[in-house]
C-alpha cells in the first residue's frame, strides 16, 4: 500500500513540476485589450473617476535610496489629485539594466516604464512588435502641454519620432535656456592656488597645461600628493576639450558623431579625424607628465569625493563644489569656460540637448488605460506639474517669496547633520530623476547654486548653437549598430584610453584608422548619414 502511495506522490510532484514550468507561456494573454477612453476625463482633475491602479517600473537613483515612492508627499499628493494610484516598482541604477531586460525578456511587463534608460533601439524593437504602444494619437488627444512644447521646439518631435513615423515614448525635457542644467558636470580650477602661483584663469589649452604643471611643481598638498587634474571619468575631460580642438561639434548624444566641418550636409565619425588625434596628443601629454590623476581610469566616485574633501585637486570637471565639498574647500574653486585650442577652436560642446532623454515614460501593451496614463504624465510638462515635481507642495515644501518659489526652511537648513539633498528626498523624488520639464523658475538644486550659475553665465557665449538629440534608426540600421557599431565604438573607446596613457603609441594612428575601416566603418557611416538625413527632413 505504502509503495503505491509513494508512486502516486512521486508522479504528482513530477507532473506538477512540469506543469509549473510550462505554464508561464500561455498566461499572458491580452488583458490590456480593453484599453479605451471610457474611464478618463478629457481635461481637469481627477483624471479618472474610478480609481485606477498602475504598476510602473522606475529607475530609483542613489540620492533617493532612503525614501519610499509608494508613500511620499509628491506621489501621495498627485494620487489624490488624479485618482490614479501608482504602484512603483523601483530599481536601483546598478541593477537597472539587468532588471529591465529581464522584465522585457520574460514578457512580464509593467504598465509603464519610467526613466528606465530604454535605448532608442529597444523603443523601436519593442514598439514595432507591439509591446510598447505608439503614442502619436494619444499625445494629440490627451497631452496638451507636451504638444505645445513640441510645436514650440521641433527638436523634441524629431528626437522621439521613429523612422516608421511612430512615437513610443514621452521625453524628459530641459527648458531650452536653462543652460546650467544642460551643462551637468563643468570644469573648475582652484583659484587659491592660481593666486599663489600668480596666474590668471586659463583661457587656452596652453595656459591650462602651464597651470597644471605649475600646480604639480608647487605641490600645495605636500609629499607629491597634489593631483593637478582629477575626475571620475576620463570622458568628461575629453568631451570638454573637444570644443578646443573642433570635434563633437553637435553635442555628445550620438557617440563619436558630429557634423563634417567642410560639408554641412554630411555627418562625420570624428574619432578618425585629425583634430581628434591632435586632442588625444594633448591629453596624452598631460597624462604622461603626471598632470592627470593616474587612477582616473579605475577611480570610484567615493574615492574621488574623499580626495576632493582632502583638497587634493588642482582642477576637475564636476558638479557644484560648495554643495558637494562644503564651503571651506568648495569656495576655493572658480569655473572655467572653453579653452582656446592650438587651431583657434573655442566652443563649449559638452552639454545635453534640451531633450534630456526620450524615454521618460513608455507605455506597454499591458496598460489598462493608456489615455489616462498619458494624461498622468502630461501634467508634468506644464507649469503646475513642474512646480509639483521639482518644488512640491506650497506651505509644506516651498513658499513663495517675492513671486519666486523657494524651498521651506526645513529643507534649506535641515536639522542635525542631514544634507539639503537628504531633506529633499524625504518629500520629493526628482534628484537624479529628471522627469517632465525642468524650468528654471521651478527648480532649486546644485545647478542653481550661485557658483554653478556663475559658471553657466561664463560658458553661455561659447555654447554651440545646435545640440542634436539621439537620432532614431530603423530596425535594419539597428542591426548594424548593434554589431558593427558596438564593436567599433568599443574599439575606439579602448584605443582612446590607450592613446592617452601611452599604452598605444600615437604613431600607430594609421593602423588604428585601418582597423576601424576593416571593422566596417563605411557601412556604419551610411547608417549615420541616413539617420541624419531623416533628422533634417523631418
Amino acid at each position: 500500500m505504502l509503495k503505491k502511495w509513494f508512486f502516486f506522490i512521486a508522479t504528482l510532484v513530477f507532473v506538477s513540476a512540469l506543469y509549473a514550468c510550462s505554464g508561464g507561456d500561455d498566461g499572458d494573454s491580452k488583458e490590456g485589450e480593453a484599453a479605451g477612453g471610457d474611464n478618463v476625463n478629457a481635461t481637469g482633475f481627477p483624471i479618472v473617476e474610478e480609481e485606477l491602479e498602475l504598476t510602473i517600473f522606475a529607475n530609483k537613483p542613489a540620492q533617493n535610496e532612503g525614501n519610499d515612492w509608494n508613500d511620499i508627499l509628491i506621489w501621495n499628493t498627485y494620487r489624490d489629485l488624479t485618482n490614479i494610484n501608482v504602484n512603483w516598482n523601483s530599481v536601483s541604477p546598478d541593477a537597472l539594466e539587468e532588471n529591465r531586460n529581464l522584465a522585457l525578456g520574460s514578457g512580464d511587463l509593467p504598465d509603464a516604464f519610467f526613466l528606465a534608460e530604454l535605448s532608442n533601439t529597444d523603443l523601436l524593437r519593442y514598439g514595432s512588435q507591439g509591446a510598447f504602444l505608439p503614442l502619436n494619437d494619444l499625445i494629440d488627444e490627451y497631452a496638451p502641454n507636451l504638444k505645445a512644447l513640441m510645436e514650440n521646439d521641433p527638436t523634441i518631435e524629431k528626437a522621439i519620432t521613429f523612422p516608421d513615423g511612430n512615437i513610443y515614448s514621452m521625453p524628459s525635457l530641459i527648458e531650452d535656456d536653462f543652460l546650467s542644467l544642460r551643462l551637468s558636470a563643468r570644469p573648475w580650477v582652484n583659484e587659491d592656488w592660481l593666486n599663489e602661483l600668480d596666474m590668471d584663469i586659463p583661457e587656452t589649452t596652453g595656459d591650462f597645461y602651464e597651470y597644471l604643471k605649475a600646480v604639480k611643481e608647487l605641490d600645495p598638498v605636500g609629499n607629491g600628493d597634489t593631483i593637478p587634474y582629477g575626475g571620475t571619468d576620463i570622458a568628461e575631460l575629453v568631451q570638454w576639450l573637444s570644443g578646443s580642438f573642433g570635434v563633437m561639434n553637435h553635442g555628445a548624444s550620438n557617440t563619436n558623431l558630429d557634423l563634417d566641418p567642410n560639408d554641412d550636409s554630411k555627418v562625420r565619425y570624428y574619432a578618425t579625424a585629425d583634430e581628434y588625434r591632435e586632442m588625444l596628443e594633448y591629453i596624452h601629454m598631460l597624462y604622461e607628465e603626471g598632470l592627470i590623476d593616474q587612477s582616473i581610469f579605475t577611480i570610484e566616485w567615493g574615492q574621488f569625493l574623499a580626495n576632493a574633501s582632502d583638497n587634493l585637486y588642482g582642477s576637475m570637471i564636476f558638479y557644484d563644489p560648495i554643495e558637494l565639498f562644503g564651503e571651506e574647500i568648495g569656495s576655493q574653486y572658480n569655473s572655467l569656460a572653453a579653452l582656446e585650442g592650438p587651431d583657434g577652436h573655442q566652443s563649449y560642446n559638452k552639454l545635453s540637448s534640451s531633450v534630456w532623454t526620450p524615454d521618460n515614460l513608455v507605455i506597454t501593451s499591458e496598460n489598462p488605460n493608456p489615455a489616462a496614463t498619458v494624461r498622468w504624465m502630461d501634467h508634468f510638462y506644464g507649469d503646475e506639474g513642474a512646480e509639483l515635481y521639482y518644488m512640491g507642495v506650497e506651505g509644506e515644501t516651498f513658499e513663495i517669496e517675492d513671486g519666486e518659489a523657494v524651498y521651506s526652511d526645513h529643507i534649506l537648513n535641515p536639522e542635525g547633520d542631514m544634507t539639503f539633498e537628504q531633506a529633499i528626498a524625504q518629500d520629493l523624488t526628482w534628484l537624479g530623476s529628471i522627469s517632465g520639464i525642468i524650468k528654471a523658475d521651478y527648480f532649486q538644486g546644485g545647478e542653481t547654486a550661485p557658483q554653478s550659475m556663475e559658471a553657466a553665465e561664463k560658458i553661455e557665449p561659447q555654447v554651440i548653437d545646435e545640440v542634436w538629440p539621439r537620432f532614431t534608426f530603423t530596425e535594419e540600421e539597428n542591426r548594424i549598430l548593434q554589431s558593427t557599431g558596438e564593436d567599433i565604438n568599443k574599439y575606439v573607446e579602448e584605443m582612446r584610453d590607450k592613446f592617452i596613457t601611452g599604452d598605444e603609441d600615437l604613431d600607430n594612428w594609421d593602423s588604428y584608422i585601418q582597423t576601424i575601416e576593416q571593422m566596417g566603418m563605411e557601412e556604419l557611416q551610411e547608417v549615420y548619414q541616413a539617420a541624419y538625413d531623416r533628422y533634417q527632413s523631418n
Partner: protein
Amino acid sequence: MAKNQSIQKGRGAVIKKNFLRNWQLYLFMMPVFLYFFIFHYIPMYGVQIAFKDYFATLGIWGSEWVGFEHFERFFSSYYFWRLLKNTIILNLYMLVLFPLPIILALAFNELRNGAFKKWTQTLTYAPHFISVVVVVGMLVAFLDPNTGLINHLLRALGMDTIPFLTSPDWFRHIFVWSGQWQTLGWSTIIYLAALAGVNPELHEAAKVDGATRMQRITRINIPSIMPTIVILFILNIGNFMQIGFEKVLLMQNTLNSETSDVIQTFVYETGILEGQYSFAAAVGLFESAINIVLLITVNQIARKVSENSLW
C-alpha cells in the same frame, strides 16, 4: 557479457524486485533527481533561442528561426579571436597551477598534529570565505597607483610606480594569483582526506626498509591519492571555460580589456546589458560546446592512461 545475456529474460523482474526491496534508497535519490531534472534539464529547451531571433512578447516557441546567423556573427566579429584567446590563456594559466594544492596538502600531511598544523591550515582556509567583491576591493586598495600600499612601497624604494590595475600584462597574474591565495587552502581539504586514507602499514614497512621521507611521499602518498587527483583534474577541465566571471568583470576596465575581455563577460555585456538574448545565448552555447568536447577528450585520455575516469 554472456552471463548477462543468459539472464536477460528475468531482467525486468529483477529490476522490479530490486526496486521494491530498496525503495527507501530510491526515495532518497528523488530530490536530487528532481533538482537536476527541473533546474538543469527542463531549462535546456530555452537553448533554442540561440538559433532564433528571440523576442519576449512572442515567447521562446513563437520567435522566428534564424539558423546559425548568431554564430556566424560571433565568429566573424572583430573580438572573436581576442575573446577566445583570453579565455583559453587565462584558463590554462589556472590549470598549470593545479598541482599547488596537492603540494600543499602533502606538506600539511607531513606535519604531525601540532597546534602549528591547525593554525596554518585555518590560515590558508580563511580567505576562501571572503566575497569576490571584497577581494577585488582589497586588490584596488593594495594596487592603486596613488594610494595603493604596493606603489607606496615602490615609491619609497625610489622605483617607478606600476599601473597594476590598468595594465593588460599584469591582469592575468593578479587575477590568477589572487585566486590562488583565496582558494589554495580550501582545495587541499579533499587531498588531505585522501591522504588520511593511506594505509599506515605501508609507511611503517617503508620506514623499516630505510626509506626517506621524500621517498615515502613520492612512492606511497602520491600513488595512493592518484585516483583523486585524476578525477579532480577531469572535473576541473569540465569547468574549463568558466572562470569566475564576476571577478573578471569587477577587475575589467578599458585599458586592460585586451587581456581581460573573456567570453563570459562578453555574454553578460551583450545578453544582459544590451538585451541581445539570442546572440548571447549563441555565444554561451559555443562556450559550453567547447567544454563538453574537452571534458570527453580528457576523460577518454585519462581512462586509457591511468584507468581512472569519470565514466
